[in-house]
């Protein structure tokens, strides 16, 4: 196993969370999408919004792009209609124009635990095509956020500064 693989397989999510220190962006299911979009604009480093219920448990996630699509779909639907080529695009468009709240627009939650490794977190983000992941406690309440891009940057930086790396 190379040093690069060891790094991903042995570094925990908790360790990375401390390193990245990006605040989760949490909204409620009945929050209006326009409000959500404005809040997201104030947290540019958080590309995945967490949606919680009244008990504060994460019930879904909302990619920023999806929020933007829902709002754009209301104002200038032509912008989204022109890109539709297949059934997946249609379903996505249909979902976008119907959604008015975070709960209606959200997708199935994607989470990791503090004990999981970075390698496992990467795999979840890759499989779900998400740019971030919420770290939750045993009850499912969000305790942190892991951002794919920030994580990838730190990862490359660590590898580049590794003294054992061949020059």
């Amino acid at each position, binding site marked *: 196993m190379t040093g690069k693989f060891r790094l991903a397989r042995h570094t925990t999510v908790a360790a990375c969370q401390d390193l990245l220190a990006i605040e989760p962006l949490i909204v409620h299911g009945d929050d209006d999408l326009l409000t959500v979009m404005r809040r997201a604009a104030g947290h540019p480093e958080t590309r995945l919004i967490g949606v919680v219920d009244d008990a504060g448990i994460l019930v879904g996630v909302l990619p920023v792009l999806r929020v933007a699509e829902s709002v754009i*779909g209301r104002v200038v639907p*032509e912008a989204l*209609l022109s890109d539709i*080529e297949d059934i997946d695009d*249609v379903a996505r*468009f*249909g979902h976008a124009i*119907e959604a008015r709240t975070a709960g209606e627009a959200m997708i199935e939650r994607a989470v990791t635990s503090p004990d999981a490794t970075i390698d496992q977190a990467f795999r979840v983000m890759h499989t779900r095509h998400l740019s971030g992941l919420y770290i939750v406690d045993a009850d499912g309440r969000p305790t942190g956020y892991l951002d794919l891009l920030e994580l990838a940057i730190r990862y490359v930086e660590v590898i580049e500064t590794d003294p054992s790396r061949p020059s």
Partner: protein
Amino acid sequence: MIPWGDDAVVLTALIFVVTYALIATERIDKTIAALLGGTAVVVVGIVDQEEAFGAIDLNVIFLLAGMMTMATILRRTGFFQWLAIRSAKFAGAEPYRLLVVLSVVCALLSAVLDNVTTVVLLAPVTLYLARVLRVSPVPFLISQILASNIGGTATLIGDPPNILIGSAAGLGFLEFLLNMGPIAVAILIVFVISTRFLFGRDMAVHDDVKEAIFELDEREVLTDERLLRISLVVIGATIVGFMVATPLGLEAGTIALLGAAVLLLVSGVEVEPVLREVEWPTLFFFVGLFMLVEAVVHVGIIDALAAALIDLTGGDPTVTTIGLLWLSGIASAIIDNIPYTATMIPVVQQMGASGIPIEPLWWSLALGACLGGNATIVGASANVVVANMAGRSGHPIGFLEFARYGVLVAVVSLLMSSVYLYGRYLL
């Protein structure tokens, strides 16, 4: 080849039944099922490779591949969305008129392009319009599915069963248009009139919500006007080509491939991404079916089936033709009409060889296979795809909800077809 003797019949029947059961129940992907069935009959020695491969109707494969390639290029232009918005404005943003106009547009497009592409690409605008007008999109989507299957009945290239029948029977585009066109138009007219009673209720909306539809700018959805113009010209020329193909001694598959090649050349689009979007699973589905059905013909099952059907109808042309229409309609409502048609083509050929006039039988099979698909949500590819898409968009279409309209439309269509077949070919 393994000398199976009479056991070959039993083994072939077993492979055939298992394959069709897998296709019908979707326990495994239908393309895999067809390919497994088609290769199994070769591997166990029921037919040899040359015979099995020779049974693959390349005219059908090339016709489908050519039309799929052209449709792939056309759908990149935003044409369908443009047409849907124009139709909405033409309908004055009145929900019921909109339903009628979109249904007719869907039927016309489905006559020359594949039904799934048509309904899928008209759907997003439909969803948006329904949302703006604050009415349910479900009646619009169901109406478009039904119209699409009716429109597809009209031409050689409108529905896969017609492509299969046309190629096997040597019937060209014009013959389909002249024989299937009139009844398809009549059914469409009756369907459009009946939509008032089927879907016309609860469609009143306030004028203020209509404004949003007139504010839509259809030109904004066109992604490439040059490509659109080129695509429409080449597709139009291809359709003219279909009309003159038979006198020139050319197959429709050749014309479709030529059209696809010309469009790829003059449009300048990258070939690889376009060809990647061709529905290869559908083409391989046909390959497997052709091989499997060849084995069923080879061992004599088709002869026996045809003889049994002739016994049942007493060999009377009227009873046989009308019986085949209803059998095909009912079967296509339950199972995929492509494998059904592939199996029934040799049966019809055998019936023709026994002295029953064959031309009415071809039209009977085509009408039954295409129109029967309207009865249930699983009856045709377009039905399944739209139901899936509607569900994912938050507007599920249930089996019974669809059947409420679909069965009625299918039964009326088959009744009209019965009268048409009798009056035109059997009197």
